[in-house]
């Protein structure tokens, strides 16, 4: 009889733990995504640094996206892929297919004797 009671109490204990575990931890609450925000901040600061050093206008003036992408290689995290679009107000869509994709837009006005309002859109993603 004692052995039976012990077993019953053990089962009750397991049931209590299981019930609380399923109730409290069963529902999936997704943690907010921070990584893409970090990419955005890094991307924005990289373009700002190039603008402050008057380098950015050299790329925007000639729509040199590949040159700008090469320049950004040492400024952005190694583990992400990225693509640059330089445009006026109508910008082409790079058609990137990725589960993790974000972008930032930087506005620039060019340089001395070469005023030109442009958008530099930096798409950052991971394959």
């Amino acid at each position, binding site marked *: 009889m004692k052995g039976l009671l012990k077993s019953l*109490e053990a089962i009750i204990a397991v049931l209590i733990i299981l019930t609380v575990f399923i109730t409290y931890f069963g529902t999936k609450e997704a943690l907010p995504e921070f990584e893409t925000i970090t990419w955005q901040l890094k991307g924005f*600061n990289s373009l700002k640094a190039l603008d402050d050093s008057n380098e950015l206008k050299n790329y925007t003036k000639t729509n040199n996206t590949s040159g700008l992408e090469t320049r950004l290689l040492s400024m952005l995290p190694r583990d992400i892929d990225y693509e640059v679009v330089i445009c006026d107000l109508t910008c082409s869509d790079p058609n990137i297919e990725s589960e993790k994709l974000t972008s930032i837009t930087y506005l620039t006005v060019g340089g001395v004797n070469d005023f030109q309002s442009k958008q530099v859109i930096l798409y950052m993603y991971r394959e």
Partner: protein
Amino acid sequence: MSMKGQTFVIMAIIIVIVMVMLKSSLNFVKIIENKRYIESGLERYQFQNVKDELEKTIQISYPNGKNITDNLNEFLKFSRQSFKSRTIELNGLFLEAYFPTIETGIDTRLNVSVLNLLGETINTINLSFSGSGVGQTQTNYTFEDYNILDTNFTFNLQANVYNYTLNITYNTSSENATKIIIIPTEVGKTKYIYYFDIRMVSNKLEQRDILESTVILNESS
């Protein structure tokens, strides 16, 4: 009932308490708030981006007063469109004034340009230029959003240095505003004066800033 049997239930209750405490310590609300704060920081950067490029436009369009005005107006309209495509509103009122090199006793023209990007029609805008021997007022009605109001005033400087006053008053369906702008005239100098009331509104953040300064474009030796 033996003591050994009860320990299973007691242990279970302790484990449950630990699990509840662990779950409570994960504060999702705070994590989400932190994320919003970081995202709003990015929008602050974008607002700063516009302000920096406005100042840069003045530098690269220097020393031609008309060039500065044209380029600034173009960049402001461009920025507004760009932000709009990202569901962010960029609004404001932008006043620019410049005059050519002043000679004592000769009439000089003060060119004034106002760009309405408030996102609504200005019902009445009143520009009043006053100072020593000058008192000129211009009133315009139904000044639409996206439009530019170009006008001018004349002054005749009798001293070497004199501060005139440009008073701007306007009203829309949502605001009435008055701003007094000092026009610091000086013999032998060309100056550009600007007053920008710039605002950015998104679903995360509202920002507003006033940029105002006087730039010496040219001075005769």
